[in-house]
């Protein structure tokens, strides 16, 4: 085991080796939406008062709309279309 340790620690090279995100890639939408909201609101808000509140509000709004769109598409594609089309 001791002999394997250097090889194990050298196995992953940050920024050179990709991280395996195949099982959880869709969770990355949350930090992405949050960071988009953070930059967008930093550019758009007239004053910086309540900035973080607006960032969180925009993040929640985008996520809720995406979830609703997912539900809508699920209903159309997997429930309505097989029955009525």
């Amino acid at each position, binding site marked *: 085991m001791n002999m394997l340790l250097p090889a194990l620690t050298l196995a992953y*090279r*940050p*920024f*050179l*080796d*990709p*991280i*395996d*995100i*195949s099982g959880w*890639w869709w969770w*990355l939408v949350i*930090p*992405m939406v949050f*960071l*988009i909201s*953070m*930059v*967008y609101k*930093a*550019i758009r808000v*007239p*004053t*910086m*008062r*309540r*900035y973080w509140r607006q960032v969180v509000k925009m993040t929640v709004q985008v996520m809720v709309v995406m979830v609703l769109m997912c539900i809508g598409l699920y209903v159309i594609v997997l429930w309505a279309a097989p029955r009525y089309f």
Partner: protein
Amino acid sequence: MLARDAEEDEPRFNLFAPILAWVAPGLGHWFLGHRRRSRLIATGIAVLYFGGLLLGGLGVIDRQQKPLWYYGQLLVGPVTPIINAWHAAHYPPKDPTFSVNHAYARPSFSHGNEIPTLFTTVAGMLNLLAILDVIFLPRTRREALPAGPPGSVERRAT
């Protein structure tokens, strides 16, 4: 007071600030005195961009394979062509033994490539917003502003 602020913060054409905003995200706002906005823009774009590179590796930036995505990533700044040049020079490795001892970016596939590419390109698109914003953004004049509650010092013309 509003009339006075509008008088102080006259929008004008900025030539240098958009260039700075491209060189380093947030630097254009910093140059115009919008320090807090600058820090937030820089942090958001840097986390998106370098987070994408951390997830997918430097091979995510590839002008030859993904030219359209590359132009989006290019909006983040000169760091993108530098990474692209480094990647083009080091991949594929000339000698198979290089894979053990030498630095080269291993390619990523499927979601492991798509999501990091999206992260880095979205960072570029957000920086485009920041670049466009500073073209006509007035300078902040802190000395002209009245004392107010925390967070209200920095303001801009509507």
